[in-house]
C-alpha cells in the first residue's frame, strides 16, 4: 500500500520549501505547501479504501522498509503499521492538517518567513505521520521527538519576540521531562520483552504472568504515561501548552489542539495491551485525566486572552481523553480525539479569524459585538462552541457523553470520575459561552484612546473561511459515526476500533441499562445548559456582575486567574534550585573555581617555567650556536661512552 508515501510527501514539501523556498515566489511556496500535504491526504484516503478491502486476518497491516539497527537478538526496523487506530489518526492528521494548511495560506499571507512557516508545518506533518504510522516504539519516538522539534520551531516562529522564543524553549524543556519517561519506558520494554515492535511487545505483554510481572508492566505504563503527560500537557507537565499560544494561530490549531497534543492519548491507546494489564497505572491515568480536566477548566474560566482560554480548554478536553483511557474506554478516547480535532481546530481557526479581523487583538475584554462584522466566523464558531459544550446532536455531545457514560459504567470507572467530569462539562459550557458572548455579543470594548482598529474590522478571505465551513460541518455531523445504542445508534466507531483494543482485556462491557445511560445523558445536557445560562447572565445580561463576583471571591479568583501559581511553584521548586545550584556550585564552584583555576594555574605555571627557560632564547645567534655545540658534544660523548663501555 506504500504507506511510506504518506509521511514522505510532507517531508518532500518541507525540504523543497526549506531549502529552496527563499527563491520561490509566494505562489510557488503555496503550491508546494498545499500540494504535498494534499497529496498525502489523498493517498491516505486511497489507503483507507484499500484498507477497507483487506481481510480481517491481514490487519494489522505492516510494511517494512529497511533494517535500522540490530544488536544481538534486538532489532529495530523502519517499518509502518496500519490498523484501524492508525488509519483514523492519519485521516485526522492529514485531513485536518490539510485544511489548516489551506487556512494558513490566508492567515500568513502578510507575514515574513512565509516559506519557513510552511516548511516547518510540512515537517510537522511528516513527523506526526511517522509517529502514528510507526511499527515500533523507537520509530514512534522519532516522530515523537520530531513533532516536539516542529512544535518548538513553530512556537518560536516569531523568534524576534522574546516571549515567543522563551515559550518555544519552555515547550521543549518540559517535553524533555516527558521524553525522559518515554525513553525509560522503552528501555524497560527492551529489557522485559527484548523488542520494541508492537507486533512482538503486545502479545508478549498479554502472555506475561500476572503475578510475576504486574510491577514491571505498571512501571512501563507509568513511565509511558509520563511521556504522554508531557506531550499531551497533562498535570503536572501541562505548563507549556498555554505559553505555546505564542505561535501563529494555525499552529495552535494544528499542533496544540488537533494533532500533536493528542499524541499522548494515541500512545496510551496504542499501548492499551500494556495498560490493560496494569490496573494501577490505568487508575493513575484516569485520575490524571480527571484532575487535569477539572483543573484546566477552572483556569479557563478566568482567562481573558482568547487563545489562552482555548488552550486551557484543550488541556481540559485532553483530560477527558485521558480519563477515557483510564477507564479503559480507548475507543471513546479516540472518538473524542477525532471530534475534538474537528471542533477545537475550528475554534482556534475561528479565533485566528477573529484575531485576524482585529489586526492582532487577542484580549477578549477588547472585543465584543463582532457577530455582524464577521458573520461567517461567527456562524462557524457558534457551531464549534455548541459542539464543545456538548449540545445534543453536535459531535462533541456524542463523544463526551460516551466518555461520561464509560467513566460511570466501566469496571475501572467510578461515580466520582463521572461527577467530576459532569462538573467539568458545566465549566466547559460556561467558559466557552463566556468566550462566545464576550467576543461576538454586546458592544465593542476598545481600549481607551485606541480607535485605530475600529474601521479595519473585516471578514477573513475565502481561503480562510472555506476550511472553517468544512470543519464546522465536520464538527456538526462528525459525531454520528458513534451514536450510542442508548440513543438508537450502533456505536459503529467503537465497533470499528474494537479489534485494536480487543487484544487486551475485554473492555466492551455492555451494560444493558439503557435507561441509566439516558438519564446520565440528560444530566450532562443539563449541566451544559446551566453553563450556558450562567454565561448568558454574567456576560450578556448583566456584564457588571463578573466584576462583583470576582471581587467577592477575592483570593480564590486570584489563584485561578494566575493558574494556581503552578508556574511560579515550578519556578521556585525546580527552576530556582537548579539555576542557583548551577550558578553557585557548577559555575562558581566547579567551573570557575576548579576548571578555570586549574587552567589558569597551568598557564601561570607555564609562564613561570617559560620565564626561566626564556633566558635561553636570547635571540643571540652565537648563544644558540653554543647550545648546539654543547648538545653535539653531549651526544658524541654519550655515543663514545656507549661505544667504549
Amino acid at each position, binding site marked *: 500500500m506504500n504507506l511510506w508515501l504518506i509521511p514522505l510527501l510532507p517531508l518532500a514539501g518541507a525540504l523543497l520549501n526549506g531549502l529552496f523556498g527563499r527563491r520561490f515566489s509566494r505562489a510557488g511556496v503555496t503550491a508546494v505547501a498545499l500540494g504535498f500535504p494534499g497529496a498525502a491526504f489523498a493517498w491516505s484516503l486511497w489507503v483507507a479504501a484499500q484498507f477497507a478491502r483487506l481481510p480481517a486476518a491481514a490487519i494489522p497491516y505492516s510494511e517494512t522498509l529497511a533494517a535500522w539497527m540490530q544488536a544481538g537478538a534486538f532489532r529495530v526496523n523502519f517499518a509502518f503499521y496500519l490498523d484501524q487506530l492508525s488509519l483514523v489518526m492519519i485521516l485526522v492528521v492529514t485531513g485536518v492538517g490539510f485544511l489548516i494548511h489551506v487556512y494558513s495560506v490566508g492567515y500568513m499571507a502578510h507575514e515574513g518567513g512565509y516559506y519557513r512557516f510552511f516548511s516547518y508545518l510540512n515537517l510537522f506533518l511528516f513527523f506526526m505521520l511517522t509517529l502514528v504510522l510507526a511499527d515500533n516504539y523507537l520509530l514512534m519516538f522519532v516522530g515523537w521527538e520530531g513533532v516536539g522539534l516542529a512544535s518548538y520551531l513553530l512556537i518560536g516562529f516569531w523568534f524576534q519576540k522574546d516571549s515567543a522564543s522563551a515559550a518555544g524553549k519552555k515547550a521543549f524543556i518540559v517535553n524533555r521531562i516527558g521524553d525522559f519517561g518515554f525513553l525509560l519506558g522503552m528501555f524497560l520494554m527492551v529489557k522485559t520483552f527484548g523488542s520494541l515492535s508492537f507486533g512482538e511487545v503486545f502479545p508478549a505483554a498479554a502472555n506475561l504472568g500476572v503475578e510475576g510481572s504486574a510491577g514491571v508492566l505498571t512501571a512501563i505504563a507509568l513511565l509511558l504515561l509520563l511521556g504522554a503527560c508531557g506531550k499531551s500537557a497533562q498535570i503536572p507537565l501541562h505548563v507549556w501548552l498555554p505559553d505555546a499560544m505564542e505561535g501563529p494561530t494555525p499552529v495552535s490549531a494544528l499542533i496544540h489542539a488537533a494533532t500533536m497534543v493528542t499524541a499522548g492519548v494515541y500512545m496510551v491507546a496504542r499501548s492499551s495491551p500494556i495498560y490493560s494489564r496494569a490496573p494501577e497505572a490505568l487508575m493513575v491515568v484516569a485520575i490524571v485525566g480527571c484532575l487535569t480536566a477539572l483543573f484546566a477548566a477552572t483556569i479557563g474560566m478566568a482567562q481573558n486572552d482568547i487563545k489562552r482560554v482555548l488552550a486551557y480548554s484543550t488541556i481540559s478536553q485532553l483530560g477527558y481523553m485521558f480519563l477515557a483511557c483510564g477507564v479503559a474506554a480507548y475507543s471513546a478516547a479516540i472518538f473524542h480525539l477525532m471530534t475534538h480535532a474537528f471542533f477545537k481546530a475550528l475554534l482556534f481557526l475561528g479565533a485566528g479569524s477573529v484575531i485576524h479581523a482585529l489586526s492582532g487583538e487577542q484580549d477578549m475584554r477588547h472585543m465584543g459585538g463582532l457577530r455582524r462584522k464577521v458573520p461567517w466566523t461567527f456562524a462557524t464558531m457558534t457551531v464549534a462552541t455548541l459542539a464543545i459544550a456538548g449540545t445534543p446532536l453536535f459531535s462533541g455531545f456524542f463523544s463526551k457523553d460516551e466518555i461520561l457514560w464509560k467513566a460511570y459504567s466501566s469496571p475501572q470507572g467510578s461515580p466520582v470520575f463521572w461527577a467530576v467530569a459532569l462538573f467539568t462539562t458545566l465549566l466547559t459550557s460556561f467558559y466557552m459561552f463566556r468566550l462566545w458572548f464576550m467576543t461576538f455579543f454586546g458592544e465593542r470594548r476598545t481600549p481607551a484612546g485606541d480607535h485605530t482598529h475600529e474601521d479595519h474590522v473585516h471578514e477573513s478571505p475565502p481561503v480562510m473561511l472555506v476550511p472553517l465551513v468544512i470543519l464546522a460541518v465536520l464538527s456538526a455531523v462528525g459525531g454520528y459515526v458513534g451514536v450510542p445504542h442508548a440513543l438508537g445508534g450502533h456505536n459503529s466507531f467503537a465497533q470499528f476500533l474494537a479489534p485494536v483494543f480487543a487484544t487486551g482485556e475485554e473492555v466492551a462491557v455492555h451494560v444493558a441499562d439503557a435507561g441509566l445511560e439516558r438519564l446520565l445523558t440528560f444530566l450532562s445536557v443539563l449541566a451544559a445548559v446551566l453553563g450556558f445560562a450562567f454565561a448568558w447572565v454574567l456576560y450578556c445580561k448583566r456584564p457588571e456582575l463578573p466584576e462583583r463576583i470576582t471581587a467577592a471571591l477575592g483570593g480564590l479568583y486570584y489563584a485561578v486567574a494566575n493558574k494556581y501559581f503552578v508556574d511560579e511553584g515550578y519556578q521556585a521548586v525546580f527552576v530556582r534550585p537548579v539555576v542557583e545550584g548551577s550558578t553557585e556550585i557548577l559555575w562558581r564552584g566547579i567551573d570557575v573555581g576548579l576548571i578555570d583555576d586549574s587552567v589558569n594555574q597551568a598557564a601561570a605555571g607555564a609562564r613561570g617555567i617559560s620565564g626561566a627557560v626564556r633566558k635561553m632564547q636570547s*635571540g643571540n645567534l652565537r648563544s644558540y650556536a653554543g647550545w648546539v655545540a654543547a648538545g653535539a658534544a653531549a651526544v658524541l660523548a654519550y655515543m663514545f661512552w656507549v661505544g667504549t663501555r
Partner: protein
Amino acid sequence: MVPISYYLVLSAILFGMGVLGFLVKRNVITLFMSIELMLNAVNLAFVAFATQWNALSGHVFVFFVMVVAAAEAAVGLAIIIAVYRTRQTLNPDRVDLLKL
C-alpha cells in the same frame, strides 16, 4: 703512504675550528664562512672514507654537499644583505631581536 686517520683527524680539526669560529666571530659573514669551513671538513672526511673503502659514493656525496652549500650561500648572503639593509650592522650580537 699516509694513514687515512691523518686525513680524518685533519677533518676533525677543521670542523672544530669551524665551530669555534661560529662561536667567537662577530661578523655574520665570517660566521657563514665558518659554516663553509665545517662543510669542507665534512667533505674531506667523505673523500677520505671513499678512498678507504674504495667507494665512489663518497665523492658523489661531496657534490651534494657542495650543491647544498651553494644554495645555502646564495640564500644566506641574500638574508645577510636584507639584514644589513634594515639594521646597518653585521654583528650578530646586535641582531638578537625579532623586531626592528
